[in-house]
């Protein structure tokens, strides 16, 4: 079966950039990469001589490690540029930063930034492919792909699955990317949050179902995904207290009863145990939270491999 790799040199800004078929072919490549991560000797010579730059303008130890490990396993050289958010307004402009890095011969950029749309700028300034590692509240396509892969691996398909995502929908880039991808693969998604944490026009934009009540949102769900609830939303006046939030929205033995018996439990991490999810659920047999992390490395290997293949 010959297949033309049309990922070469392409940017991954969000899952909207890829067709259903393309997403599936990323999932298949991820499967092959996953095998490598299970070996004793976890290294491939594939991308020798390629240089990948991680450009992180926002702290994220996990995502950065996952990307760097992925690039390292494929033998690419990895350089990292980190800058604090405060330097965005005072320091060197993004344009100058990218011009400088580009002069050093970067083949692929991986960027995390608090401002939506910044990956597009990095591509504009560098002319090199860019993988979005999270831009503000806009998109986090590699996280969505690893979430989708984790479900796909367990269930073989997303077609017809009912997926419930619970938590701070308004501030979540993970949800936005997941909604695009899951919808493309045929799942039906319900998002659930207090009204103050639900963006407007969700149904119109994503074709999902909006529910403010946890129990009805979880009804018959095949997959349940919890999201991190941050304390600062309380001081922003979006909900009265974590205690009250937990009462209404925590994933517990009690609440997940409404979902299917074998529903998968997911969380993009880092978790607030006891707030959005109880340990009895996070550590249960149904939970695939740890596997998600492992799959993250494989997904990122697949994307780096597919994007860099072809251009020497």
């Amino acid at each position: 079966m010959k297949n033309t790799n049309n990922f070469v040199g392409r940017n991954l800004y969000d899952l909207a950039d890829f067709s259903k078929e393309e997403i599936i072919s990323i999932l298949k490549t991820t499967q092959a990469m996953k095998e490598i991560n299970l070996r004793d000797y976890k290294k491939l010579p594939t991308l020798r001589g390629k240089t990948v730059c991680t450009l992180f303008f926002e702290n994220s130890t996990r995502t950065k490690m996952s990307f760097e490990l992925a690039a390292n396993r494929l033998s690419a050289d990895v350089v990292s540029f980190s800058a604090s958010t405060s330097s965005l307004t005072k320091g060197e402009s993004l344009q100058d930063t990218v011009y400088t890095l580009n002069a050093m011969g970067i083949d692929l950029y991986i960027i995390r930034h608090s401002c939506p749309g910044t990956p597009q700028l990095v591509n504009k300034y560098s002319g090199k492919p860019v993988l979005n590692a999270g831009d503000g509240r806009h998109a986090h396509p590699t996280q969505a792909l690893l979430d989708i892969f984790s479900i796909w691996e367990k269930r073989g398909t997303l077609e017809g699955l009912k997926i419930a995502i619970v938590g701070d929908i308004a501030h979540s880039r993970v949800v936005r990317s997941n909604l695009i991808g899951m919808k493309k693969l045929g799942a039906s998604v319900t998002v659930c949050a207090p009204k103050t944490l639900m963006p407007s026009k969700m149904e119109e934009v994503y074709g999902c179902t909006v529910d403010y009540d946890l129990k009805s949102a979880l009804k018959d769900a095949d997959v349940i995904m919890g999201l991190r609830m941050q304390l600062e939303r309380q001081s922003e006046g979006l909900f009265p207290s974590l205690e009250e939030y937990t009462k209404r929205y925590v994933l517990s033995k009690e609440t997940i009863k409404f979902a299917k018996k074998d529903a998968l439990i997911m969380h993009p991490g880092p978790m607030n145990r006891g707030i959005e999810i109880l340990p009895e659920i996070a550590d249960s047999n149904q939970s695939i939270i740890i596997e998600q992390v492992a799959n993250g490395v494989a997904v990122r290997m697949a994307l780096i491999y597919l994007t860099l293949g072809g251009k020497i």
Partner: protein
Amino acid sequence: MKKLIKNGKIYLDGKFENKDILINDEKIEQIGSDIQNDNFEVIDAKGNFVLPGFVDLHSHLRDPGQTNKEDIVSGTKAAAKGGFTTICAMPNTEPIVDNVATVEYIKRKAKDLGYSKVEVIGALTKKSEGKEISEIASMIEYGIVAVSDDGHCVQNAKIKLNAMKYASSFDIPVIVHPEEYNLAGSGQINAGKYSTKLGLGGIPGLAEEIIIARDIMLAESSKCRLHIAHVSTAKAIDLIREAKKKGVSVTCEVTPHHLLLTEDLCENFDTNTKVKPPLRTEKDRKACIAGLIDGTIDFIATDHAPHADYEKEREFVLAPFGINGFESAFASLYSELVLTGNISLELLIEKMSTAPAKFIKKNIGEIKEGRVADLTIVNLDDTICLTSGNMLSKSKNTPYLNKTLKGKVIQTFCNGRETWKA
């Protein structure tokens, strides 16, 4: 030497007539059929339309203090190219125009070096901080035409009421930039479909409407002339329509971009679509056009807001709000409102010349014998295409960059002097 404009279609009392115009120094001496050449400088309008020079109530010339973006010379040159003969400068410069010295500086520089007349709008409150009333009476002595904290909005209703009361004793309009800060928050684009999709903070229409509703009530109470800058939502226009019906002294303006563009343009994170108030929905845009037609909206103002390339060329969230307006205003409105059959050319001229001129109570905005010769000749069949190379503004931050528009200003006269020739 006197100038004789021949072969033009002259806009006179709401109609186009084939007449000649004789200009003597600053003034229109005679309008007539077939004026005989008596050693005049003849300007052949070649059958093109001769309009009263455009008047802009809302612009940012950035001078003094931010001349990296624009200055009075480059700003008025750009204005002349766009067919404007009088523009009003908003006070949010550095320093803020809250004192007579800065008023005088702008007026003098414009008079000596400018390519169009510049009227000054003074700050309503000192440093536009919304705390203490600025020296409005003194600035009026130096010729300001309105007061405003544009770019800022007085949040405290009591301070606003007092400022409006104070201003009402001079019959000077108070221009409000309607924005409730808590509702607007750190919003970037219209709150709605696209703010959800792009993960950008939303500025709800409510942030604008709530201040408009408040200020209408304050205007009723203070008997002040209230003018609302850049209306952008259907609801805001409804509020003003109702207030006008009730006889409140309120007027408002709309920008070309709120008449022509909508929030979906923000989808590619182009910072030249980042304006305040934000581009709204198609429903809002249609309401703006309807408001213009039914007279709720009194005139069009550009909100010319130049920003240097390097300020706009960056992350969307970190780029400043505002776009360039002078050089694209007429062509964009003619192409996308008149040629599309939404409004007549006559209405466009009313809203760009006559109505704003009346608002500042200057004897301009119409072509009449004895008036100053502020004239704009346009070729409606010819096109313009703004590029970073041919723009006269120091800043090139326009969503119309590299787009071709119909309706070209080919010549502009300000006080009888040619200030632009294509």
